[in-house]
């Protein structure tokens, strides 16, 4: 079974702090994704990556950056956390590069609260 592990289940940070959310997958998947989930808005794509050191902006990249130095690890960085970034963050991975129709495997999420 594919395992996608997010380093923290709950995180509380102060406004202005730099925040790192870590995600590791153990199935040698090429693709990794960061989504944020808010009530009534569903899952919105922040950034994704199809290969090591490669990144593409999703629909809501403002205020975020990412790093993918190794294939198995994809980090989401909040350069200066703000209260409107309080949310559930979900990491996902899939195989197949840019191939159509690969299922996503999600981590359990990190609930981030910025005070």
């Amino acid at each position, binding site marked *: 079974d594919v395992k*996608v592990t997010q380093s923290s289940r709950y995180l509380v940070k102060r406004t202005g702090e730099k925040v790192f959310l870590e995600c590791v997958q153990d199935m040698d998947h090429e693709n990794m*994704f960061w*989504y944020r989930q808010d009530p*009534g*808005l*569903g*899952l*919105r*794509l922040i950034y*994704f990556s*199809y290969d090591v050191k490669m990144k*593409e902006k*999703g*629909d809501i990249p403002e205020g975020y950056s990412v790093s993918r130095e190794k294939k198995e690890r994809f980090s989401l960085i909040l350069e200066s956390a703000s209260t409107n970034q309080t949310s559930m963050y*979900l990491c996902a991975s899939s195989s197949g590069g*840019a191939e*159509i*129709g690969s*299922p*996503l*495997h*999600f*981590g*359990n*999420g990190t609930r981030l609260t910025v005070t």
Partner: protein
Amino acid sequence: QQPVQSPQAVILREGEDAVINCSSSKALYSVHWYRQKHGEAPVFLMILLKGGEQKGHDKISASFNEKKQQSSLYLTASQLSYSGTYFCGTEGMFSGGYNKLIFGAGTRLAVHP
């Protein structure tokens, strides 16, 4: 460009049927369906590909109308375990040549005894 799901919420008794719809304004290569139970990660249910191929769950059925960019998920003889939030995700070609999976806002389904 987020796909639109309807209805937003459904309440069923065990054994009843439901249909969840997903529509997009963009040409699509595929539609994914996922279910998320409260406090858990979304779990893959099925994928419908342009051209008619399907991958996934053998107890859930779905359709994909490529011309209308619409998909429907059919939940028949519902069980308590079907409760959760259902998300559709759509894959289309975006700038840069890469596909990306964009999700709808979700449909909350509650099945009661």
